[in-house]
């Protein structure tokens, strides 16, 4: 029978913790940029201007039709070239930066669809009421539509954030030491890969499960 050897975990905890911080950092950046960019894309998609709407549709469809791993690798290979060309330097930590960019852009495409549905769920009457008070289209969007839309979308946005949190483990393909990467490398080095991956899995499970409980509470609150 297989003998579990958990002895390498306590010593690895500081590194695992640092890895978790990096994971949360990537998740956080992708959520924030994804929300901002996703909102812009959602508004463009709903625009009456067919060109803007078409561009936004291409963006969303494009990113949703490509595996995340490939987006990550592309950016890992492309971004250094770009930066070198733009600022003439190549000594920046390109892995973290390309992870930020890739996850943000990828996330924006998913958030854009959630936000678009949220915006469309706000009734036309609300838009009319805002406009009738003399608000411009932009004011109506900012002061009336988006606040209502976001309230309704919070559970969906959080669920998507949980998926994103788990997806960050994919950055191991570009050799970035986030939580999963640290666990994998430590296990490999000490010959305790199974134990470390079980441990990492448990941590992902606890955090994701905890977060989805929060989502459930929020959903129950949002329901009339």
């Amino acid at each position, binding site marked *: 029978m297989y003998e579990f050897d958990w002895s390498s975990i306590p010593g690895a905890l500081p590194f695992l913790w640092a890895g978790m911080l990096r994971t949360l950092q990537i998740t956080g950046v992708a959520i924030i940029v994804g929300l901002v960019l996703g909102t812009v894309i959602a508004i463009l998609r709903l625009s009456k201007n067919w060109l803007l709407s078409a561009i936004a549709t291409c963006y969303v469809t494009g990113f949703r039709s490509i595996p995340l791993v490939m987006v990550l690798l592309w950016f890992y290979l492309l971004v250094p070239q770009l930066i070198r060309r733009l600022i003439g330097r190549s000594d920046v930590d390109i892995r973290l930066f390309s992870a930020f960019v890739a996850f943000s852009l990828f996330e924006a495409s998913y958030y854009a669809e959630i936000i678009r549905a949220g915006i469309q769920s706000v*009734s036309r*009457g*609300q838009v*009319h*009421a*805002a*406009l*009738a*008070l*003399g*608000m*411009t289209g932009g*004011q109506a969007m900012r*002061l*009336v539509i988006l*606040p*209502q839309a976001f*309230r309704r979308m919070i559970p969906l946005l959080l669920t998507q954030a949980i998926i994103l949190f788990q997806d960050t483990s994919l950055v191991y393909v570009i050799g970035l030491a986030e939580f999963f990467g640290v666990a994998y490398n430590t296990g490999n080095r000490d010959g305790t890969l199974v134990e470390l991956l079980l441990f990492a899995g448990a941590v992902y499970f606890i955090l994701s499960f905890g977060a989805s409980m929060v989502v459930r509470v929020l959903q129950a609150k949002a329901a009339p």
Partner: protein
Amino acid sequence: MISMISIKNVSKWYGDFQVLKLCNTEIAKGEVVVVCGPSGSGKSTLIKCVNGLETFEVGEIVVDGISVGTRKTNLPKLRSKVGMVFQHFELFPHLKVIQNLTIAQRKVLRRGSKEAKEKALSLLETVGLAAHAGKFPAELSGGQQQRVAIARALAMDPIAMLFDEPTSALDPEMIKEVLDVMVKLAEAGMTMMVVTHEMGFAREVADRVLFMDEGEIVEDQPKADFFKSPATERAQQFLSKILSHGAQA
């Protein structure tokens, strides 16, 4: 007689379907005009054309000397001067009652928050809801919500008020509290265009009654004439239908 709202030869189509057919009327400053007619007759569409919430293809609408339908018109500015009350209230559910009344004052008219708040509270007082300032719209009854909506429109110091079936979504026992506020407003000299089936309200405060059917303004008469002897058969039929139950008339 100073013209406040002038509607000239207005026509509108949804695809092949013509919803408004050469509508003409004038509403003078201080006048109260009731628009009635069967559902689907274009009443709501017409009133929404007045502040540009709906567009129209042909004709001209001039409000306080400003043409609504042209591209150059600063519609937000025009709308800020024309209050509108909707069938389904359309209070902003994420804002408290007081914020519903202050948001456009602050963001559109650029009033200071103290001034906006004072104005809001005094208007809530007028409609009898000062005690509810800190509540959310969902905590109020339909009648209360509609009174808040009227106060919200009045907070902008409008030169005219448009009402689009303001009592149609209300339970019968709440209709009166809303109509009372509207009657007070009419008596205070506000220019009002009111789409409604409340013939009691029309009898009490209207100067003129417009009757619409199939996109046309079929009748445009002083209220006494309209109720005594409607000129067209369609209006007679309509009146006999809604008056036969006699509830509000």
